């Protein structure tokens, strides 16, 4: 589904990714861990096409196509979803309005007609129940005045409605209490299927107790320096990153 080959990026003059390789197959859940400033969020932003994250060399193929040739909205329409670490507030724009516009953009891309208003509300209500969100959220401004936990739930709600092929979740667990964490994990797990993939960027093993990854990577100094199974996350929890960094140096 996703093949990243020798990816190098920079922000301004600063080198961020330095030859990163990563392959994610359909049906898999990958966790990317690593010390602060390693380039984890930058990787997510680069894949989503955020302006300012310049690719200097390497390639990224998504479902066989050249991802880097697509505009950010085209990447989204093609089925790439980024769950933001800090979802932005957009005052005055209803959640439900954004959600519907996003869903219709995706449907248009697939050659489907705009979603029927009744079907849409039925779908959204079902997903909101799963995320244990109150319906009042729909008529509020996008993330406007939401608590940290509410913002993260809202990200997962959007993901569930849009049903992306590949979900990149950037520290979706940060700032969540244990109950909210379970709800969020529940949401992510409900999307798991043979034709989708999830990449979790996280600092903590805790999330991985609820969303079991197939593969765990350590990203440091702009590269993947170690890859293993779920047990790697436990080892990192116990030992930190220093031993790996020493090896890699």
């Amino acid at each position, binding site marked *: 589904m996703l093949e990243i080959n020798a990816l190098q990026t920079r922000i301004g003059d600063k080198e961020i990714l330095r030859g990163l390789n990563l392959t994610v197959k359909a049906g898999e859940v990958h966790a990317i861990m690593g010390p602060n400033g390693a380039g984890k969020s930058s990787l997510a932003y680069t894949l989503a096409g955020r302006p300012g994250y310049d690719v200097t060399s390497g390639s990224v193929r998504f479902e066989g196509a050249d991802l880097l040739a697509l505009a950010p909205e085209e990447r989204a329409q093609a089925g790439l979803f980024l769950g933001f670490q800090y979802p932005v507030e957009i005052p005055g*724009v209803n959640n439900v309005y954004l959600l519907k516009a996003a869903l219709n953009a995706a449907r248009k891309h697939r050659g489907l007609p705009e979603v029927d208003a009744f079907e849409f509300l039925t779908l959204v209500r079902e997903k909101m129940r799963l995320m244990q969100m109150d319906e009042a959220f729909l008529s509020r401004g996008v993330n406007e005045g939401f608590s940290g936990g509410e913002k993260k739930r809202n990200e997962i709600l959007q993901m569930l409605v849009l049903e992306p092929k590949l979900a990149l979740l950037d520290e979706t667990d940060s700032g969540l209490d244990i109950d909210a964490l379970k709800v969020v994990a529940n949401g992510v797990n409900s999307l798991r299927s043979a034709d989708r993939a999830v990449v979790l960027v996280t600092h903590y093993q805790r999330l991985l107790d609820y969303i079991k990854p197939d593969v765990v990577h350590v990203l440091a100094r702009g590269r993947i320096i170690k890859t293993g199974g779920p047990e790697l996350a436990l080892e990192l929890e116990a030992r930190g990153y220093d031993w790996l960094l020493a090896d890699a140096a």
Partner: protein
Amino acid sequence: MSENAQLNEIVGRGYQHGFVTDIESESLPPGLDEDVVRKISAIKREPAFLTEWRLRAYRHWLTMREPEWAHVRVQPINYQDLSYYSAPKAKTDGPKSLDEVDPKLLATYEKLGVPLHERARLAGVAVDAVFDSVSVATTFKDRLEKAGVVFCSFSEAVQKHPELIERYLGSVVPHTDNYYACLNSAVFSDGSFVYIPKGVRCPMELSTYFRINAAKTGQFERTLIIADEGSHVSYLEGCTAPMRDENQLHAAVVELIALDHAEIKYSTVQNWYPGDENGVGGIYNFVTKRGECRGRNSKISWTQVETGSAITWKYPSCVLRGENSVGEFYSVALANHHQQADTGTKMIHIGANTRSTIVSKGISAGHGQNTYRGLVKILPTASGARNFTQCDSLLMSGECGAHTFPYVEVKNPTATVEHEASTSRISEDQLFYCLQRGIAEEDAVNMIVNGFCKSVFKELPMEFAVEAQNLLAVSLEGSVG
């Protein structure tokens, strides 16, 4: 009406009739003097009190100078170059069919969702069969007449209700008020007149859109709306689609009067030609709009969406004279390309426990300059008066500007005045967030801008709100950067 005035009217009427056939078919040559003012009045068969009023205004105008305090750059206007009266255009003047109309203009109508048959009318196509609107307009007239509502052109009102004109004209905006209002008072061509009788709730929203007979009111419009005791009216002004008006100067005056317990809601969507991308051409919109809450518990509410004109200079204001009266001002002003907008409001609190609310949203794009100028004045008599002002600016480019000039004068210690202001740039974070959800850039910008304007749009009547949103989208096309 005083006996004297009545006499004048009769005398005036007799005098003026003779002129009609001579002059009605021709245009006055450029230039302005007392004779021109008299001729305009004569063509319109006005009673003497009105002719005299125009002349007083003209004489006062000669003593005035153009204001220079607004935050706008104005090309000098030579008032002797303008023609102050032109006979209605012959039907053969305009384009004969939609095929002859500028395709760019038609494309804009299409985007705005203006119905096909209305597009022709708005583009000035000379068609004899006047669409469905005629029957629509007639049905409207019947319903309004049954309710006792007077809704007609200003000229018609002068003939049919001179006593109301004499009593109320200039009672809110005196002919001496300001340079442009004074000029308007001398030479105004036509406009709208509304009278809502005591206790009547106007059965429909009044819109100039339906008033076919005054489709082309020219550059000096005069509007007078009187809501008698306990009445209620909602008035919609403006073109719902862009008019390519060649006139450089548009100096209108609008006066609203609300008596005891009456309520007037006045909504404007203004979309005149703003000039091209380089700031060439476009309308100078210098308008004086003022409402007076003359009676107790009365209310006047202004809502405006200003997206057109090269220069906008207007301050729809409320004089809150009656006890417990309420004034409101909700505004969205957009300045794109080289447009300049200097707009805001004045809330003059005179009566006790008067309340006012100001919500202003300014959007600047391209090289646009947007200024909010507002005055909140609490006089010593206005015990317990309250004002709340919120003033937000959104910047969409590096070259545009937003300016805020709030003036507050409080002369009563029991008054409460609150002011909130913010200036923000359309944020890359917001834009990228929408893009990442698969929403195209232009749609994303519209969504964010509409969100910014929401608290004003919700004050507009439903159909108008939709049009206002579309209008904003059209006006902002290609302005991201």
